[in-house]
């Protein structure tokens, strides 16, 4: 239960617990703080196999994040799966840090090991236009996840068997989850009855959305 390490202990479920000290839910919550996790057992495991891949390791709320170089993610994932037993890719997604100098995107892999139910988050920094090695060869499940990341962020994955848009349509202009994509959406040319319902919502002329 690595997930639960930094969380305050669960309240006893007994209803009439003596309430002499304040119950944890009445106190100000103790927020977890990120800690360096280079010495964490999970990170050490990776380092033992691939000594120079972990650039940074952070523990937050019991969850380990290991940042690895972008070019080696395929290798790291294969090692994780084949030698460390992380047979299950839980999630794969990306985060857009628009103004960050060292690579705009984070691609985040969240892997799971069944033997002791440990989870590990791998992260790579990707600059715009840089191709990330695809992990579809490692886990089949990564296929659609990478397509979704491609669709939503415009991150290209090399060696992906079928890198197409998945949620938006082919020819959609832009990548919606990028921070510079306007939140109100773009004009895709798919307006419905623009002559009947002018853009802007309610019928109050000029009075909408202030």
């Amino acid at each position, binding site marked *: 239960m690595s997930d639960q390490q930094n969380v305050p202990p669960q309240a006893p479920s007994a209803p009439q617990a003596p309430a002499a000290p304040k119950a944890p839910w009445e106190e100000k919550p103790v927020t977890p703080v990120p800690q360096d996790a280079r010495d964490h057992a999970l990170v050490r495991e990776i380092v033992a196999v691939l000594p120079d891949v972990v650039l940074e390791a952070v523990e937050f709320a019991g969850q380990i994040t290991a940042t690895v170089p972008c070019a080696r993610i395929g290798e790291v994932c294969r090692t994780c799966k084949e030698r460390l037993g992380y047979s299950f890719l839980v999630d794969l997604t990306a985060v857009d840090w628009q103004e960050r100098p060292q690579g705009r995107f984070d691609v985040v892999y969240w892997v799971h090991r069944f033997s002791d139910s440990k989870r590990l988050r791998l992260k790579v920094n990707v600059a715009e236009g840089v191709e990330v090695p695809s992990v579809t060869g490692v886990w089949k499940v990564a296929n659609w996840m990478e397509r979704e990341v491609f669709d939503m962020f415009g991150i290209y994955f090399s060696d992906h068997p079928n890198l197409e848009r998945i949620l938006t349509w082919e020819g959609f202009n832009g990548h919606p989850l990028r921070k510079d994509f306007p939140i109100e959406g773009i004009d895709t040319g798919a307006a419905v009855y623009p002559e009947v*319902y002018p853009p802007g919502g309610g019928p109050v002329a000029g009075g*909408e*959305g202030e």
Partner: protein
Amino acid sequence: MSFWGFLASVLPLELAQGLSVTGRFFFKRKATIQYPEVKPVPKDRFRGMFGFSEERCIVCHSCAKACPIDIIHIADHFEEVEVEGKKRKKKVLDRYDIDVKRCMFCGLCEEACPTEPVAIWLTTKSYETAAYERNERLYFTKERLQSWDGVRAYPGVVTPAEGQMPGDPTGGSGEPER
């Protein structure tokens, strides 16, 4: 599982057993509610059509901020009011519009309302807001919010037009219990 499998292979009567189930349902009480004649009774916390009270509203914009889809549009101005001999500035509501056609009836505006009792609430039990034209008819200004023009009130619900409902956000009085 294997037990059931075994049983099924031994007794070829499972089709008749299925027929007996549907056959028994044939005589059961029916679940249909004849809607326009019989209306299902919403529960007390049912999040139905909006109720709004202008006199309770303190124009704090909390509801508009809490609204996840920004459908509450508020505009106000300050007015000099004389309260107990002192001149005070008071916010006066110019516009309080709710674009009900986009509303998802989450109730966050009601939770955000700081007045006691709340000035905007959803538990009025009335749900018959259907309209033939959505942009005009489902766009509720503060006058329409209080008069409920275009909303069929649930039987027993006091509409804001027929007098306010101080302290009783459900708006109802003596609803039939289900």
